[in-house]
């Protein structure tokens, strides 16, 4: 099943070659840059301090959250709405937001979907699309909160469960991700029979949750859920791309990246135009130290959806790993400028992702151009766009 799909990844078909053929020298360059950066302890100390400061600020905002800041209505606790949303009272905000999201205008899709929710906070579909759009927009915290809200309103929404499992995996919350996938099986009419006779897994979500808090469940639950998914896959006559996506996520959790690659390739054999799948394949390849192949997968995702900010960010990370720092920085800058196109009248830095800025700083730090690094530190996107000859 995978051989034919692997063929799809051949270099010839996707171009990317200009970058890849330079690998040898880039690798050397990367090693040199890496050594230079590592020896610069002062730089790392500063970086560390900055990162910790960021984390500390997250603490603060998280704590403030409990006191419900003014921008958050009591019904939507935990999700930060844009304070100045031009689409607040927009008619058909959901339909238009959904369309914008499909078109890849993610920042404005977010505004429209928020508008739809402000008009009807019980609209579970709007929460779902907002969640998946925020994930594509490289805003994981917002994605998780939105998907959780969707599932509160509509607990057996399979798409939301799968999307939540992905977002939780990305943030290292393996146990919760595993649980979401178990829920996905439990609510899936095709597979719920597999849970019969497995009372500890089929049990009510509440008791499941209580149990998982206790302790050693971690690794054993992952194994059990993985086995269930594999069993389901064996019973299927045709490849179920959603089931394979779940398997891909589970193998990512257990760091079995080659198996995860197989699963996503299987899903792609059914849905070759699914840019989300191409990105998931790319991310899996990248996390399994196969950055060159990852670049090809991201390239495909971006061909299908040029506004896909997450994939653009991922492509930048792979460029760092391949030692192509200039290309990396260009990709991060492109992603940031796309986010800035938001029609929110809020300060522009509030619509851009912190982790894209952080990755940009890593790339710039390896280019030995302190003035650019300084510009990134103060968030001067215009200066950087100019320095990289990028259109605004």
């Amino acid at each position, binding site marked *: 099943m995978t051989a034919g799909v692997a063929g799809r990844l051949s270099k010839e078909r996707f171009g990317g070659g200009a970058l890849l053929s330079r690998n040898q020298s880039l690798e050397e360059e990367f090693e040199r840059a890496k050594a230079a950066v*590592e020896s610069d302890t002062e730089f*790392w100390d500063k970086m*560390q301090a900055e*990162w*910790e400061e960021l*984390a*500390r600020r*997250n*603490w603060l905002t*998280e704590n403030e959250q409990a006191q419900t800041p003014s921008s958050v209505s009591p019904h939507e606790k935990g999700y930060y709405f844009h304070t100045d949303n031009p689409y607040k009272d927009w008619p058909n905000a959901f339909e238009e937001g959904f369309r914008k999201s499909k078109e890849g205008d993610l920042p404005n899709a977010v505004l429209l979907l928020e508008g739809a929710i402000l008009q009807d906070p019980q609209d579970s579909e709007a929460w779902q699309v907002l969640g998946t759009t925020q994930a594509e927009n*490289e805003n*994981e*915290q917002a994605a*998780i909160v939105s*998907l*959780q809200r969707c*599932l*509160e309103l509509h*607990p057996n929404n399979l798409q939301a469960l799968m999307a*939540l499992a*992905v977002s939780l*995996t*990305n*943030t*290292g*919350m*393996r146990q*919760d991700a595993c*649980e*979401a996938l178990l829920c996905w099986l439990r609510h899936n009419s095709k597979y719920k029979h597999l849970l019969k006779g497995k009372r500890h897994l089929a049990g009510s*979500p*509440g008791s499941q949750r209580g149990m998982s808090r206790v*302790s*050693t469940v*971690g*690794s054993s639950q*992952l194994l059990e859920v993985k086995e269930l998914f594999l069993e389901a896959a064996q019973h299927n006559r045709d490849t179920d791309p959603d089931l394979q996506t779940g398997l891909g996520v589970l193998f*990512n959790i*257990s*760091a*079995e*990246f080659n198996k995860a690659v197989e699963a996503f390739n299987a899903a792609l054999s059914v849905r070759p135009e699914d840019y989300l799948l191409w*990105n*998931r394949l*790319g*991310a*899996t390849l*990248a*996390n*399994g*130290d196969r950055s060159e192949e*990852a670049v090809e997968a991201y390239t495909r995702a971006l061909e299908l959806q040029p506004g896909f900010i997450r994939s653009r*960010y*991922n492509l930048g*990370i*792979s460029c*760092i*790993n391949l030692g192509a720092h200039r290309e990396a920085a260009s990709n991060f800058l492109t992603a940031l400028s796309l986010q800035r196109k938001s029609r929110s009248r809020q300060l522009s830095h509030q619509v851009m992702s912190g982790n894209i800025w952080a*990755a940009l700083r*890593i790339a710039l730090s390896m280019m030995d151009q302190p003035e650019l690094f300084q510009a990134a530190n103060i968030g001067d996107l215009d200066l950087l766009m100019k320095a990289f000859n990028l259109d605004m």
Partner: protein
Amino acid sequence: MYHIQNHRVMKSMTVVVVGGGVVGFSTAVCIAEALPYCSVTLIADRFTPDTTSDVAAGILICSPFPDIPLEQQQRWFKETIDHLLPIAQSEQASEAGVFLSSGWQIHKELPADKVPFWSAFVLGFRIMTDRELKRFPDHKFGQAFTTVKCECSNYLPWMEKRFRKAGGQVVKQKVNDLQELSSQGYDVIVNCSGLGAKSLVGDSQVYPVRGQVLKVQAPWLQHFIRDGEGQSYIYPGMHSVTVGGTRQVDDWRLEVDPEDSQDILERCSSLEPSLSRARVLGVSVGLRPSRKNVRVEREMVLLGSRQVPVVHNYGHGGWGVTLSWGTALEALGLVRKCLHEVRPRARL
């Protein structure tokens, strides 16, 4: 039902600490408190009161390791006592089991270093006067000082609380090899397994030095007495006086040896005659996780298909409590370096 309850902060990196003794918990607390973006899990098969640390008297005294720069060992000692002194002087002291202890270290022969490398960090270090030494006729030389005593039967539960408060998770589980941890996807593994490192990472340089101690009821004793290199010692504690000891190299016996007990009581009674009238409350045995040099370093280990950074912090011998916080901070620095090298992860 999917709400993120306990860990509201987004955790982007996962660190696992193996070992539930004083070194494991100190390291886990350091990491969890300093790196709030890390999700820290401590895994061990034994916890207090069943760890080697629980047998230790926990007095802050130390001999140097031969091949580690003395300044570094000094720093470890200083950082540990500077961490414990404020606890001893706070309202937490009794709960944490941390308090000041004064007494004497006495020598039959003039030691090579009249002033040990840590003398500046304990309180009121001085050479004993002849008048003080008079009661120890077999001893030529002595040092008097006030140091900290940290009793792990209290300290470990207190540290566990502190660790959980910082968002740490505790799992009771035997870890047979690092592969198990890697397959659970941890970004960094911290090895504080003490003697367990022999099998966990196949370190043949780590070996047990067996120590047997007695707990006796002698509330009239207020000063510790330590003979030379610690063959015999008397340490008054919160609930009893610890008297010891033995230093049996490569001896794996965890059972009490009655002959050792007899020998310990004789040796200690010759230093402190009133002990012969003290009631023995209990006897325990611990295996000091010894190594020529304590191992605090990091390495990349190939586990399955993945290079995983591993930070080692084990082999403290009898100085686990003494160097616990200092080596934990050192390990924290190494974990930070590992995290720097962990590239941002691609997102699915």
